[in-house]
């Protein structure tokens, strides 16, 4: 046997049974990636970058709230007219949305299946563990992720679909500025938005550093910058998003 062939069956010294067996037959590229944890983490990192691009653009776009109702509504209308007349109206927006939905699905699916894999591989300690490096953000990724997902569903029902009673009572399609101010003038909703965006910031603090490791982007020339980037990105996105409910509550932005 040469080393180019997988060394199976294992020698008799190896008495521990594998937790799972990977199929040895060749499969299409993405299917093979999906079957392994390293490949799944790679897909998680790629979809994570897509979602980071979205949250950043979304937060920057919403800053137009501070320019007034006309600018904000003009911007929300513009999103439907990107690449017109190359493409008909709203087509490009829908392409972006489909990409986003796919990124969300693969990101969450990979997270769920990796979590299941880790649960299967892990034998918990009876005495208390003393963690040295694992920070709060890294250890709560699953929980902050769930908070973000629940917030996302609420946020869509509130401002995109106008589902009552989640949406404000006079929600009207197309009146983006009015809808968002009406919604965030409710104290409970504003608090929920602040909490969810703190969770988003914590998720990004680990995720936007971790993605470099998962993609194998590791170089002493920029390794320090990865931490600065992740911290800066998380703080910037969270600060922009948290400013909206606070400023609306403070009456700085009013419908």
């Amino acid at each position: 046997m040469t080393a180019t062939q997988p060394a199976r069956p294992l020698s008799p010294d190896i008495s521990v049974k594998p937790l799972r067996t990977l199929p040895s037959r060749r499969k299409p590229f993405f299917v093979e990636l999906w079957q392994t944890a390293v490949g799944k983490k790679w897909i998680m990192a790629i979809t994570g970058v897509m979602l980071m691009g979205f949250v950043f653009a979304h937060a920057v776009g919403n800053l137009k709230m501070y320019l007034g109702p006309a600018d904000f509504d003009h911007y929300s209308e513009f999103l439907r007219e990107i690449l017109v007349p190359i493409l008909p109206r709203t087509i490009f927006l829908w392409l972006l949305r489909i990409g986003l939905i796919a990124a969300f699905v693969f990101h969450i699916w990979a997270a769920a299946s990796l979590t299941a894999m880790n649960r299967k591989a892990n034998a918990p300690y009876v005495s208390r563990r003393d963690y040295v490096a694992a920070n709060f953000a890294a250890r709560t990724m699953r929980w902050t992720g769930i908070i973000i997902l629940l917030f996302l569903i609420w946020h869509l029902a509130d401002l995109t679909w106008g589902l009552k009673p989640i949406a404000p009572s006079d929600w009207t399609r197309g009146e983006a500025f009015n809808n968002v101010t009406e919604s965030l003038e409710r104290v409970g909703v504003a608090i929920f938005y602040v909490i969810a965006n703190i969770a988003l910031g914590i998720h990004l603090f680990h995720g936007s550093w971790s993605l470099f490791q998962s993609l194998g982007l590791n170089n002493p020339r920029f390794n320090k910058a990865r931490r600065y980037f992740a911290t800066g990105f998380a703080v910037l996105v969270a600060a922009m998003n948290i400013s909206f409910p606070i400023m609306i509550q403070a009456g700085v932005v009013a419908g």
Partner: protein
Amino acid sequence: MDLHLKIWRQNGPDSPGRFEDYDAVGIKDDMSFLEMLDAVNEGLIEAGREPIVFDSDCREGICGTCGVMINGQAHGPQKGTATCQLHMRKFHDGEHITIEPFRAKSFPILRDLMVDRSPLDAIIEAGGFISANTGSAPDANIIPVPKTAADAAMDAAACIGCGACVAACPNSAGQLFTSAKIAHLNLLPQGQAERWSRTENMVETMEEFFGSCTNYGECQEACPKEISIDFIAYMNRDYIKAKTKNRKLIGQRK
């Protein structure tokens, strides 16, 4: 000094374990952690009780046989030190010390503090040997290796395979071990001909036994040889490269 120990006792792989309390009396500062356990065992044997089973061999930090969780940390509180080279001067008189075996589903407990780490051998076996007979052993230094490459490979080759990385990982992932073994060969000219097939085989064998990496960084803190998680990034990249290479062209088909 006197210590209060809480040690995991388990009769066999399938029997339930429990913590038992022991007092270690008259322990000297210059004893290693394992010598302290030896002293406790002598007392147990004299009293006609069953001694505590733990693994050890070289007792100079190079074989990777020893290793226990000490107060919730793999190989104890001192960074870059295996259990055998951890000295009792790191503890103070009257301290309570909890000792638990390394835990992972693929590290079944054989007895007390001794675990079966043979899945690590399975990973080595999946990619780490060549059985092709191609003449006598080559002369030393016949293949020039740049000093920097040799140094980087040596950093990875410092891995003693103790399994502390798996034990410290909240996911029981074997990434640090596997990446060190992969980088050790992939960084050298001799390792190039089988680089991509080896990476693929070793990663996929690892995943049959262990969890996935969530970049906590606990492993590099626990590693007695201070191997960096930079090697995990290197392995991730090589794995994706292995998947995208024209393996037929370069003669490395799985």
